[in-house]
C-alpha cells in the first residue's frame, strides 16, 4: 500500500502481517471512539483507559483470525471493546500499567476544571447506565453500539453476525422499554 492514507482494510492486512506501525495507525484512528465507547459502558474514564488498551491488545492478538470485511475497523473494535468490558479484562491493562518503567510517566497538568467535568461525566453516565441496566444485555449493547457510539445498523449487523433487522429490533425494543418506563435515556441518534 502506497497511498498516503490507507483505509482500515489495508492497515489491517499489514497489521495481520506483523506491522506494528500499521496497527499504531489504526490505534491513532480509533482510540478516541473506543475510549468513549468503553466509558459509556462503564461510567468510568479510568476504566475506559484500561479497556481501551486491553481492546487493542486483544485485537492485535486476533489480527490473523479476523478478516475485515468493512471499510472501517471501528465497528469490530467496538464489539471487541464490548466483550472486553463484559469479561472484565481490565486487569490486563492494569498489569501493563504496573509494568511501566519508572520515569516513563509524563507530567500531567492538573486542570481542576477538567477533573470536575470528568467527574460530572461519570455521575451522569452512571445514571444513564442505571436506567438501562434492566434491559437484556443484547439490547443494552445494541443501544450503546448503534445509538450512543453511532455505528450503523448495517455495520453492527455485520460484526455481530446477525441480520440488520435483528439489530433494529434490539434497539427498538430497548427504546420501547425505556420509554415505557419513562427513562430519559438518549435513544434518538441511531442510523
Amino acid at each position, binding site marked *: 500500500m502506497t497511498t498516503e492514507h490507507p483505509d482500515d482494510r489495508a492497515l489491517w492486512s499489514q497489521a495481520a502481517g506483523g506491522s506494528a*506501525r500499521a496497527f499504531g495507525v489504526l490505534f491513532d484512528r480509533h482510540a478516541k471512539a473506543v475510549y*468513549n465507547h468503553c466509558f459509556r459502558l462503564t461510567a468510568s474514564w479510568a476504566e475506559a483507559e484500561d479497556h*481501551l488498551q486491553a481492546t487493542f491488545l*486483544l485485537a492485535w492478538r486476533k489480527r490473523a483470525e*479476523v478478516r475485515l470485511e468493512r471499510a472501517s475497523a471501528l465497528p469490530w473494535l467496538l464489539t471487541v471493546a464490548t466483550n472486553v468490558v463484559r469479561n*472484565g479484562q481490565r*486487569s*490486563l491493562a492494569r498489569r501493563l500499567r504496573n509494568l511501566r518503567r519508572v520515569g516513563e510517566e509524563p507530567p500531567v497538568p492538573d486542570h481542576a476544571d477538567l477533573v470536575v467535568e470528568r467527574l460530572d461525566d461519570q455521575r451522569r453516565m452512571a445514571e444513564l447506565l442505571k436506567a438501562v441496566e434492566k434491559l*437484556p444485555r443484547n439490547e443494552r449493547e445494541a443501544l450503546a453500539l448503534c445509538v450512543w457510539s453511532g455505528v450503523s445498523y448495517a455495520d453492527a449487523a455485520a460484526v455481530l453476525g446477525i441480520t440488520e433487522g435483528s439489530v433494529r429490533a434490539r434497539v427498538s425494543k430497548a427504546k420501547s422499554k425505556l420509554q415505557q418506563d419513562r427513562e430519559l435515556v438518549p435513544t434518538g441518534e441511531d442510523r
Partner: protein
Amino acid sequence: MTSMLPPTRDLPPGRHPQIRAELERAVGRRRSRLTVPILAAAAAVFTVAVSVVLLRPGPSDPTPLVQITPSPTSASVDFGVPPETVAEIEKGCVNAGGVGKATLRQLVLEEPRFALLYADDVALRCEIGVGAGEYSVGSSKGDMRWLPGHFSVEEARDVPGGDAVPAPKPADTGRRAFRQVVGRVDEKVARVTLSADNQVVDAKVVNGTYAARIYYPPTWRFSVNDPAPVVRVYDAAGNLLGSSDTSWQTCYENPQTGELVGSVRQHPADRCQPAVPWK
C-alpha cells in the same frame, strides 16, 4: 435523571502517545524486558477458548519437572486439604476478588498454589501466597453457566522463572518458571492435555474444571512468537473432542438468548453453534 449523554472526550493529556507506545512495545517483534510479562499478562486474561499465545521457542529444550496426573471428576471433591482450609481459601479469594460468593472448583497445591472458583457470572483465578497479599485474584466476567463447546480456557499463562531477570528479588530466587492453563469442561470430557515445547502433560480434571502446568528451570523465560501451547480434551474412549488451536474457528451462543459465549465472532457470516450447559 438526566437524559444527556456526556460529551465525547479525548484521552487525558499525554495518555494517547503513552498507550500507543505501550501497545507498540507489547506487539513489537523485538524482545524487550517488558515483552514477556506483557504477553504473559495478555495470556492471563484470555477467557476465550482461543488460546493463541504467541511465544517463541527458547534456546534449549524445556524439562517438565512436574506432571499433574488426572483425577476423576467428582461433585464432592477432596482437594487434599482440610475442609477448614477450603473454607479459608474460598473466603480469601472471594474477598480479594470483590465478589459476593464463589465456589472452589479446582485447587493446585504445587507452589505457587492456585485456586479456581466460580459463581454464575464470574470466574476467579486466585493465586495464593504470591505478592504482597495472601490472595491475588484475576476475574473473568461472563455467563459461566455455559461453555463454548466441550471446554473453555479461562487462563493460559506463562510465568518466567525467579532467576530469569537480571536482578531477581530474593523472594523469587529459585522459583521455577511454568506454563499454566485452567478452564472448564463439560461432562463428556474425561481427559485434558496441555502440549507445549514438545511436551504433553495431563491436566488435573476435577469438578468440571481442569488445571495443568509444565514447569521449567528458574532461569527460564518465555519469549514471543512461539507456537501457542495447546489444550486438547478427550472423552472416556480417547476420542478428541476439541482443541484450543482450532476452537477459535467456531463461535457459540446461548441457545436461549442468542448471546455469544466465550468469544467474539470470527467472521460476520458465521453461524454459531449452541453453547453447552455447565454445572
